[in-house]
């Protein structure tokens, strides 16, 4: 059965794929200590990495953005386009990697409430881990509600 994007179920299904595949620990992936959020339209999902694992993903309200190192923010339609591209190509194609979305959009993708660049830089420092996570979504069935 397909999981609806975005939802806690969808994120946690991707999380199971991510946590159970050792190939995501090598090739520039590996230990990652970071608290992040995905802001999808008006909804917020907390994505925390501890050591080599992603912790259970929970939905939160907007106030939770103050506590994360950085959050990735796009309108729902843009997130859906990214997830569809990943599903179609088995991983993000050239125009849909997280770094590309960040630099290619006038408003950027990665933001923070605190504006502490040391914490915002974690998006760059752990970029491959986040890319692996979303690329893992190609291995689950997604529906868009």
């Amino acid at each position: 059965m397909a999981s609806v994007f975005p939802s806690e179920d969808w994120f946690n299904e991707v999380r199971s794929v991510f946590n159970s595949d050792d190939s995501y620990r090598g090739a520039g992936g590996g230990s990652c200590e970071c608290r992040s959020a995905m802001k999808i339209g008006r909804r917020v999902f907390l994505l925390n990495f501890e050591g080599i694992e992603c912790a259970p993903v929970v939905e939160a309200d907007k106030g939770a953005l103050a506590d994360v190192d950085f959050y990735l923010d796009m309108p729902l339609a843009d997130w859906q386009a990214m997830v569809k591209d990943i599903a179609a190509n088995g991983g993000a194609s050239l125009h849909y990697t997280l770094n590309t979305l960040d630099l290619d959009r006038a408003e950027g993708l990665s933001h923070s409430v605190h504006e502490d660049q040391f914490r915002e830089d974690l998006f760059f420092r752990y970029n491959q881990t986040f890319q692996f996570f979303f690329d893992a979504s190609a291995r689950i069935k997604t529906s868009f509600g």
Partner: protein
Amino acid sequence: MVKGPYIGYILGDLNYRREPGMSEAVDLATVEIELKLDWMNRQGEWQTHAKPGKSGLTLADIQIGSYGETPEISDNMTGRPRGAQARPGSFRIGNYSVRTKNEIWLENASFLYEEALQRQWSSATDVPWHTIEPLPDDIEEAQCELATFLTEVEFVAGDVPARWISETTPDYFEPRNVLLAQVMDEARHMDVFRKRALANGGGLMQATGGTAGVVGSIDLARDFTEMSSRLHISGEGAVLTIFRMGELMAYNDAEKAIYRLCAQDEARHVAFGVMHMRYMSEEAPDRHEEIECYLDEAERQILAGSQNPAGNQTASSEALAILLGGGVAHYDEGFRKLMAIRRRQLVEYMKRVKSAGFGKRFENGRSQVKEMMAVSAA
């Protein structure tokens, strides 16, 4: 005193009985030696039971008792591992110039070191080289120009921290180990751009001179903090932006992977600089003015564009604009993108310096970066 048969022998400790008829060759099986074992009494702190955490057994997990204590000033000139008992007769094997903690320290060095070890990648096998296909000539030439420039830059990025490793007392092994890991990272960066240049029908271009002048002058720093502010904060902050741009303008998955993975490493090197400067901000008020001067100097270079390959009017910035625009014919569009990304780079630079504890310079008129951004945006 323990006695026993011993395989092998220790000069001076032999005390064997030669039986009648026995050859003069030592029969090791019958040698009886007196083991001294006095080394057993010369222990550092004992009864430590380090336990692995979620990331395995890390350096942070073994900061136990005296092993976790770093002296403010180190008198260790003998290579003695921190926490080991001193050996009075040992030679001075290192004439370490960095023996004051705040000269090199940062709070998260052991964390950065473990991160570096655990997030390594191979330029041979983790880059999907098979995805590279023939590109239009101007694009391939621009990629090769950038690859040539970055190969040069990575030599400096490796050589400079490497010089400071053997200058640093083993008592501060955590930052030392981060620098050792950085040298490995920079070797990989150097090789991956060389590989890219040779992978798709192109080759290396004329040496760009990218390491002469200001970038080369990073190596003239006589003080570690001076070096770190030039290398980790301003220099590698700029290179991080180039790598992020490289990922954006990649024409295949191989280039995507190269630039993304280099950017990760680079962000770690920048993090070292920010955390070291933050430590100086908190622990060395007597050096604040001096550090402000390092930042003055770095900003003059950034604003002149000479240190900043994402600046303008250098071969590498032309190459970047051609790649961003999608060919020589779209240079103007590429240049506009380049300038927009450069503004973000300056914002990130200011926020890093602020995070490091020196943000007042952007409010009190000392720094010109804000004004420069306003002019370039107009």
